[in-house]
């Protein structure tokens, strides 16, 4: 079998792979558009901040579910751990936001690593139920140690100092949104890097066919532990952001509802598409805000219908649908 000379052998392939990692025009537009709220909707910056936080949380779940294929129903556990870490620090005198943020990410990441030692050994229904069970155990425990967590009333006395000593977190959310958006963007860059790396490719391999990966000698569990840890850490950052921008922490940050909401956001936007969680978070949170006066039951109706619709008609979520559209347009245009 003759092969091409090694000098030029891989070049066209390399070019093809490089094209996949390039920043697209739409992406740049997206991030620039994120600055619009300051100009267009200055009254809604708190909401924008909440959206950015949810987007960050959804991004962390996308890494786990969309890229590694791990369906975790307890991801809120890490969000809550981050939230409470930042909250407890702030409530006990350490109100500096950036270090609080880092600490929260670290705590959540370490807990994620410890959990991963158990979790990645399982798959299927056992995996789903174990992640759910561990998260519920944490939520239950957090409720019980109300002397520490404030229990059902939430943590009191969370006092967050101004960012860089200058920008205080006000009710208008100007600092909050800039802070959340900056963190979101930086973490996004990190996650984007990961997905474009060989590690990211391995994760996709595990998601597509874990058995074949093992047959290629891949250390699946080591890869998954790493992913789980990183995803947990990012979720923790999101939780800390919520605490610091709202100066409250409640048990809801650990609850099943939170895990379910983020999954719905991710599915709506499109799983495994990097921007899916972001798009889904934007649409979901805006819709929830607009329809906040709706009966909760009716909200469930539309969410349910949306989930059914996505599975039946739009399996890739909104981004999936858009990519199908653009592909069919491209085919028509010469």
């Amino acid at each position, binding site marked *: 079998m003759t092969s091409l000379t090694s000098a030029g052998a891989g070049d066209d392939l390399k070019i093809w792979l490089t094209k996949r990692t390039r920043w697209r025009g739409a992406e740049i537009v997206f991030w620039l558009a994120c600055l619009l709220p300051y100009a267009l909707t200055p009254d809604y910056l708190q909401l924008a901040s909440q959206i950015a936080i949810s987007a960050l949380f959804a991004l962390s779940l996308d890494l786990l579910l969309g890229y590694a294929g791990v369906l975790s129903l307890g991801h809120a556990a890490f969000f809550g751990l981050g939230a409470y870490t930042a909250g407890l620090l702030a409530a006990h005198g350490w109100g500096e936001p950036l270090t609080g943020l880092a600490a929260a990410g670290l705590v959540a990441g370490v807990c994620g690593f410890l959990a991963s030692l158990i979790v990645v050994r399982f798959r299927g229904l*056992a995996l*789903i139920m174990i992640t759910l*069970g561990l998260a*519920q155990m944490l939520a239950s425990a957090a409720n019980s140690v109300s002397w520490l967590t404030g229990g059902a009333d939430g943590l009191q006395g969370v006092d967050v100092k101004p960012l860089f000593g200058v920008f205080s977190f006000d009710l208008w959310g100007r600092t909050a949104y800039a802070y959340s958006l900056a963190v979101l963007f930086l973490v996004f860059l990190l996650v984007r890097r990961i997905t474009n790396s060989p590690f990211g490719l391995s994760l996709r391999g595990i998601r597509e066919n874990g058995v074949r990966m093992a047959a290629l000698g891949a250390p699946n569990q080591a890869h998954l532990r790493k992913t789980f840890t990183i995803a947990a850490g990012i979720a923790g950052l999101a939780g800390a952001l919520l605490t610091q921008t709202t100066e409250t922490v409640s048990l809801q940050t650990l609850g099943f509802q939170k895990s379910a909401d983020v999954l719905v956001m991710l599915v709506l936007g499109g799983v495994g598409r990097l921007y899916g969680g972001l798009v889904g978070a934007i649409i979901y949170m805006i819709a929830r805000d607009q329809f906040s006066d709706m009966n909760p039951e009716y909200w469930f109706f539309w969410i349910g219908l949306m989930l059914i619709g996505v599975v039946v008609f739009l399996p890739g979520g909104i981004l999936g649908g858009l990519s199908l559209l653009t592909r069919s347009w491209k085919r028509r245009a010469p």
Partner: protein
Amino acid sequence: MLGSIAGVLYDGFAYGMLLFLLSVGLSVTLGMMNFVNLAHGAFAMLGGYVAVTLMNRLDWPFLATLPVAFLAAAAASIVLERVLYRRFYKASDLDQCLLTIGIVFVSIASAAYVFGTEQAVVRTPAWLQGSFVVGEQTFGVYRLFLIVVALALAAGLVGLLEFTRFGAKVRAAVDNQRMARGLGIDVDRVFALTFALGCGLAGLGGALAIELVGLNHTFAFSYLIYVLIVVSVGGLGSIGGSFAAAALLGVSTVAGEYWAPQTGSFLIYFVMVAILMWRPLGLFGKR
């Protein structure tokens, strides 16, 4: 009323029997077709509300509503399976979860719309209420009724599975679907019937649940988690597994509520995670 271990065991076992009825259908159909039907609880809720409507609007006696609850849930499941589920047997686990959760949400909202959000109120016959005394311990009569019904049905199911041709086909399909098809068994039909039977039992469970744990529009979701615990701990495709896991869960729940209420549901989840770590396929699961 509950003064001792006997009381906790009795109440716990009765609750477990209810969970068994609610879960056994899901365990068998999951084991057979690997189709994750999280909407299983919605069929239970349907059965419950059918019973409520018959009793409150049409003045039917309680016992008469039970078979109707069963049939209504079974019929609904046949329709849903034909119209929707059939197309998703090959879909990914995630897609099946999302689809069926969507159905749960829609059913919760519909129940709220039709029946409101308050607890359903029914009058069970006088002979089912009250309690009897054995030694120094008081036991509720309804719970005894529940236990008897569940045991009878469990025996019936085992008999169906072990001694009938249909049961043999079910066992074959659960064991190895490809082989069963190869042997000429119409697995799709067997599945549809088993699915109907399982959902019917859930509907019956829903009707029976009203007196024990109450019924409102969130039933489909709030009991989903318990059903999942029973199914995962008991093992897919196993009646015996569902029975054991349901009894265990029932007793643990009541024991926890009675002796350690401040720990909430911690104990339940702890036990579940521990069992799954030891036996990922469930206590009696094969796959």
